[in-house]
């Protein structure tokens, strides 16, 4: 919901903590997920994400969520789907070049980053190109599996 986007960015600090809290809690459930099978769970989790993240941030379910880096502003709402910062076309009033009725996603991301109160701005992290194969899958389950994969490597 567009009106909620602004609210989420203004409340980026605790929402990011909540978001990471959810991911931590889900990580604890890894053995259970593994027993049931991640594939079988994906659709249900995607549905939950669509409702919650959709309401708060107009999440587009890219399956590789980076809102922790963008101050809770979903970059997939950028008409150019930029994942690394604002383009040069942002209007003087901070509105989008392509959709003048919409606040630039990255102007909001910068506001959100300043809300976070972190030592370094996570917006500065260079994001890889989008993996198109992951669109429409659960980002949370993917994060859990990624964390477990890293744990196993260590």
């Amino acid at each position, binding site marked *: 919901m567009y009106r909620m986007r602004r609210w989420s960015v203004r409340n980026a600090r605790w929402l990011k903590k909540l978001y990471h809290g959810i991911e931590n809690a889900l990580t604890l459930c890894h053995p259970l997920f593994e027993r049931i099978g991640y594939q079988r769970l994906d659709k249900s989790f995607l549905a939950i994400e669509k409702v919650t993240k959709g309401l708060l941030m107009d999440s587009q379910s890219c399956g590789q969520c980076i809102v922790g880096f963008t101050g809770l502003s979903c970059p997939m709402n950028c008409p*150019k789907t930029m994942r690394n*910062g604002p*383009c040069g*076309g942002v*209007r*003087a009033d*901070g509105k989008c070049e392509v959709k003048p009725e919409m606040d630039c996603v990255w102007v909001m991301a*910068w506001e959100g980053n300043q809300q976070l109160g972190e030592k370094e701005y996570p917006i500065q992290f260079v994001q*890889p*190109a989008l993996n198109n194969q992951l669109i429409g899958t659960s980002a949370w389950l993917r994060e859990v599996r990624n964390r477990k994969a890293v744990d196993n490597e260590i």
Partner: protein
Amino acid sequence: MKFDDEPLVPGENLPFRTGHDSPGRLERVLRAGAFVVTAEIAPPDSADPEEVYARAALFDGYVDAINATDGSGAHCHMSSVGMCSLLTRRGYAMVMQVSARDRNRIAIQGDVLGASAMGVSSILCLTGDSVGVGDHPEAKPVFDLDCISMLNMVRDMRDKKQFLSGRKITSPPRVFLGAAANPFGPPLDYRPLRLAKKISAGAQFVQTQYCFDIEIFKNYMSVIRDMGIHEKVFMLVGVGPLASAKSAEWIRSNVPGVHIPDHIVHRLAGADNQKDEGVNVCVDMIQQIKEIEGVHGVHIMAFKQEHRVAEIVTRSGVLAGRELWHPGIARDVDPATH
């Protein structure tokens, strides 16, 4: 500017120097510490190579490198790969612009290899204007990459010798990497950090959006200097002549990302010959920009006024007597004394 190791065969790049990333003239001249001039060439709506040569010849002796735009303003013209292929054959130092709007990662990586094989030594990575502002608004916007993921990708092709997929490249593209910057677009306080991010993704030189507001630019540069960014990147500042007050008004309300302050528009409106005044404004701007610490050159975008670039460069005095390479000079190199 001629170097002591100029190639005998016109159309070849300079010998590769250790510590450089490309065999190109742009990197050479920038690293030599000169105040560099680049200009944007207008790609023709035609398949005639002679038109390309004629447009490039307008700049002979006045620019160090030429930017070939890639469907700028989302309008269809001859491709930047095509322009660069033609002009590198004559020895011009080309900056090939690559926009993420029209091609995906497979096409772009192929173009980078092809262009490098044709002698392109500098590549400018851009996200690109939206298709909506162009002459084909019904086209599919691709945007598979953004400028930063593109920079990262091309740098890995060069330095790690691999495609984005990880597959090996046997002979990597030796290219000097550039990015665009818009110091005049919101959020203004983020713009220096945005440049820092582009540098960490691989940008070695940057060409900015049109600078008409010197105060905003000076503030931007002071942050850039405080952050030490000016020592990590070559900064070429975008300038260009405005045709009239009316066209300035049109540009600032229709071209994304161009900021023209009121006093510039008033200055044009009050002039007897607005076109000449546009050139005067451009020359003034270059002279002010040249004095700013951390600036390494200017990038002239003289849209539909390419024939005035020579005059702008001459009057601004930025070359300071430096003689620039062009195909005419190359023919003067005597193989016997070389």
